[in-house]
């Protein structure tokens, strides 16, 4: 894996290129800001993309385990799972890393002879893509859980109350307080 060795020396350039590629999935007006504002609190998306892509490239070239790589991808996917992307777009940026590395190899005459090492690296990137998909599903799932939990939180106490036995309770105490009134939550 001489290629990987060589690429490790350029991992910053690769990460930068990949980041630019990923930023390009946002509107141009937005992308520049995500890139330029270095403040992690006023620009959490840019921060996650920057640190995430760096960590993934490093981890990939160092041959880290799926668990580690998944941790590096986590924040980016968590963010993209709530942004207005189709699922393919949300995780698709991972596969752009392939092109980035190819371009890096292609653009350098010392690397070109080592191109045969690309195959294995690309296999790793494909596995990375699957990890991203797992994460994406995990977070989409969580969003739906959160929806359900909100619903539960708003009624749990009411039900608990209805089920509680209270000797001496009288009057309206046994009636569901919401029966006549409309409920808080509307639906379409």
């Amino acid at each position, binding site marked *: 894996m001489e290629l990987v060795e060589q690429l490790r020396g350029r991992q910053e350039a690769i990460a930068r290129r990949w980041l630019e590629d990923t930023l390009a999935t946002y509107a141009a*007006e*937005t992308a*520049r800001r995500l890139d330029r504002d270095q403040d*992690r609190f*006023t620009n959490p998306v840019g921060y996650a993309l920057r640190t995430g892509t760096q960590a993934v490239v490093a981890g990939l070239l160092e041959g880290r385990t799926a668990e580690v790589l998944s941790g590096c991808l986590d924040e980016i996917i968590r963010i993209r799972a709530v942004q207005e992307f189709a699922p393919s777009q949300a995780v698709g940026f991972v596969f752009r890393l392939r092109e980035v590395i190819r371009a890096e190899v292609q653009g350098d005459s010392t690397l070109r002879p080592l191109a045969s090492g690309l195959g294995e690296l690309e296999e790793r990137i494909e596995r990375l893509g699957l990890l991203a998909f797992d994460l994406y599903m995990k977070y989409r799932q969580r969003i739906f859980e959160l929806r359900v939990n909100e619903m539960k939180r708003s009624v749990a106490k009411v039900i608990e109350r209805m089920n509680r036995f209270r000797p001496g309770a009288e009057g309206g105490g046994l009636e569901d307080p919401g029966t006549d009134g409309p409920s808080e939550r509307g639906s379409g």
Partner: protein
Amino acid sequence: MNVLISLAAVVVLFLVGLLGGLPVLDIVFGILLPYAALAVFLGGLVYRVLGYARVPVPFRITTTCGQEKSLPWIRQAKLDNPSSIWGVIGRMALEVLCFRSLLRNTRTRLLEGGRLAYATSLTLWLAAMAFHWSMLVILIRHLRLFTQPVPGAVQWLQDVDGFLEVGVPVIYLSTLVFLVALAYLFLRRAVNPQLRYISLLDDYLLLFLLLGIGLSGFSLRHLIKTDIVAVKELTLGLATFRGVSLATLGTISPLFFGHLFLVCALLAYFPFSKLVHMIGIFLSPTRNLANNNRMVRHVNPWDYPVKVHTYEEYEDELREKMKAAGIPVEKE
């Protein structure tokens, strides 16, 4: 697209202005148009101010940017959250003179050991301050063309402004700052996609107009000099409504008329453009009202009665349930 149209418009205006160098037309460009532009400018501003003043402020909707006045032992942010008229004046002064709000861009930086450091992002604030203040200085400097004798203060400002003592005649610092700040403001708008997205023709047009005025003014002083004595005769004549002799007008270079015409265009356009922010900044209800809402009642002049659900209606609907639950009712 907007950039090109604006640029073209300003170039055309400038070229039209050059016509002022021709006989007869110099009367139009040197005397009639400046008066007309000034009339539009003043009339427009008065119209705007009256227009705003006529509209009431129904609610006191101060944006508070600091601690309110509450318990005596809690320190109030008297300028960022004023509760008195003096606080408001202070707040407005900071806004108008120092662009306080643009200074709020706090950015964090992670220091070694994971400590956060805070710094204010200054670029936009600096450019805005540089531009507005240098323009004010330039305007005041121009007073020397409209006064005889020139007031000491104007002379003094001029001396201070020229302290670099570079070039003959001396290049004023304010001119340089003005042009650099404008160039920055333009580049920022043209290069940053986010700003380009929100920019309108208005924005570019004004930048080019001001740049055109600045550059032509700079040229008049340093490159293609004109007969400054004749210019002063004209401007003083305009200012004192005494008029000026045709012979004098004839000796003024076309470049001056180009400069003057751009100024006229700016004056006439002023009341219709975003430049009315000059008035707006004083009238913004989120800034120019004290946050004393719970201390002093604010009256809405157009307040009107609305349909409410009264307690009687409420009890009528729910009386039996209230009685059953032991909640007191008005009518048994």
